[in-house]
């Protein structure tokens, strides 16, 4: 009896945390999204106006589609880069494995703003890349100066470390001798990857995908600093509602839509995955 109470009390801690840090702010967001603003005033009359604006305004749907495409492309690129990198660390990292993985986390030690500014310094018209190109007598690369490509590079740069870390951890937990088993039973190295390595690390890969996709969807700083005039993404537009135009209710509605979109994205990914088929038991490696 006593143990059961203790168990419940312990479960209560995460519950309270979730309520305080997640549910309550989310609820206040939802409430705000059904009010409206009028010249920096919140008017508390219940209405669907913000959602109607979002659905019919055109611009917001454009931002969302842009962001979905951007987040999808960036997440895919991150995974395409992170896989060989993590795999190489696992295979050849030896005793420097941990060091190498930690090295990937180093950019996290600086703020996101600093990293974006550093990238601006790299990609801009007077940035390192173009400065070098021009010094070599060639034309500067226009497509990396304040474009969506620059934003994508920026987002990949920001979130690649997360994806590498997640996939590395997944591979670390993966019993590589299963590859030997597959080879012994007639699988070529490529086939062994398809049959064993990939499905058994699919769950980790998807976590990496989601951990990259969701923040990309709400990215504010990167499009703002690197995206140029045509690079407005959903998160940046949403931040505008809160920061500059004071249309908080519309911003809250954008936030709710973003939240729902993220959930749907996670569910869509989740429903396509049979956890058993990823060797996931929920109880650690069995």
């Amino acid at each position, binding site marked *: 009896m006593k143990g059961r109470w203790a168990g419940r009390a312990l479960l209560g801690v995460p519950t309270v945390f979730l309520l305080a840090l997640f549910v309550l702010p989310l609820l206040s967001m939802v409430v705000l999204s059904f009010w409206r603003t009028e010249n920096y005033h919140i008017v508390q009359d219940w209405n669907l106006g913000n959602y109607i604006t979002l659905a019919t305004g055109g611009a917001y749907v454009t931002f969302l589609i842009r962001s979905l495409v951007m987040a999808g492309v960036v997440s895919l690129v991150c995974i395409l880069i992170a896989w060989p990198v993590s795999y190489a660390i696992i295979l050849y990292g030896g005793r420097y494995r941990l060091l190498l993985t930690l090295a990937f986390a180093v950019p996290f030690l600086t703020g996101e703003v600093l990293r974006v500014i550093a990238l601006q310094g790299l990609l801009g018209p007077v940035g390192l890349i173009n400065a070098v190109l021009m010094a070599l007598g060639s034309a500067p690369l226009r497509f990396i100066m304040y474009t969506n490509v620059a934003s994508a590079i920026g987002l990949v740069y920001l979130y690649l470390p997360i994806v590498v870390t997640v996939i590395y951890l997944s591979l670390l937990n993966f*019993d590589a*001798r*299963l590859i*030997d*088993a*597959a*080879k*012994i*039973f*007639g*699988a*070529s*190295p490529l*086939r*062994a990857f398809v*049959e*064993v390595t990939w*499905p*058994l690390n699919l769950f980790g890969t998807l976590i990496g995908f989601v951990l990259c996709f969701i923040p990309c969807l709400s990215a504010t700083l990167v499009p703002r600093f690197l995206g140029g005039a045509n690079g407005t993404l959903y998160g940046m537009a949403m931040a505008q509602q809160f920061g500059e135009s004071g249309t908080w209710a519309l911003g809250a509605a954008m936030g709710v839509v973003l939240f729902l979109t993220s959930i749907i994205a996670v569910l869509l990914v989740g429903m396509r995955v049979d956890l*058993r*088929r*990823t*060797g996931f*038991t929920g109880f650690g490696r*069995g």
Partner: protein
Amino acid sequence: MYITLDGVSRQYDSIWAVDRVTMGIGKNEFVSLLGPSGSGKTTLLRIIAGLEKPTTGRVLIDGEDVTDLPPHKRGVAMVFQEFLLFPHRTVSENLAFPLRMMKLPAAEIAERVAWVVGILSLGGLEKRYPNQLSGGQQQRVALGRGLVGRPKALLLDEPLANLDRELRQEMEVEIRRHQSALGIPFIYVTHNQEEALSMSDRIAVVRKGRIEDFAARTDIYDRPKTAFIAQFVGRSNRFEGTVDAAGRHVATRCGTILALPAPLTAGHAVQLFIKNEKLRLAPDDGTDGASHGANRLACTVKDVILRGAYADYILAFGDRELNASRPRSERAFLSGEAVIAHLNPEDIDLFDMDGERPS
């Protein structure tokens, strides 16, 4: 020979894990690679499988030089110590894996899986995932996955090490039965001499990357070629000593005089082994006139361990211990009883101090 290793070596950094191994294995042979951990037996197996490349030497399977072939082109199968079943595949999918890789038609795959399920009594478990199986069941699936593709050879890497004793003995019989039924060579890596002795036709004793001896299991047990084998295979009592002037006896360090089965050069330093079950016991009650003297050691029973049909005696002899193992059908001794342990000179295995049989 169906499988031939010709001067195979494998070097890691500066260590030779496998050192100039040459051996041949017949088509219907059950061969064990027996050795302590780190002896290189598993590396040898992985070289045969193609998971490791030999630094030097050739590997031939069924007359074909496979030294440079990757594992999936060698047509051999393997059973791993940790089973290494695919955790994301059901039992029948695990069993079908080798067949799918062989691109067999679905009907044949189903047929062969059913066959393996039958011979390994896995019926009813087909839809389960490996982590829903007991250790013994996982072992059967691993074995089934090894057999289902009818490989040219089945390599087994300590497959029973993770099972409890009873299950192990059951599986030993079963594995042996499948080997004779299929008529393909099984190469069985183990550090457990009982497993090697119970199943193998021939045993290769591996030590420090080299084959100490490769012979029929009875030869390995009854006539160990080296002191290492005498020590490692079976359980023995060991003595050290020097051959006396007449060349007929050995004076051991513990003061006993032992008669030799054959004369030797005087002054030769030797080591002698006698298996526990070859040590005969008689009560020390003065009825035996020559109770003391050569090859008769007066001991006291320190402890008795019952092992079913056998009783293991721990004997105090001077300041050392001797071990004897006698059938329960013989007279039993009790703790504290005085006994005479008798070593028949014919049962003594005698080696130089460097471990070789004296010439």
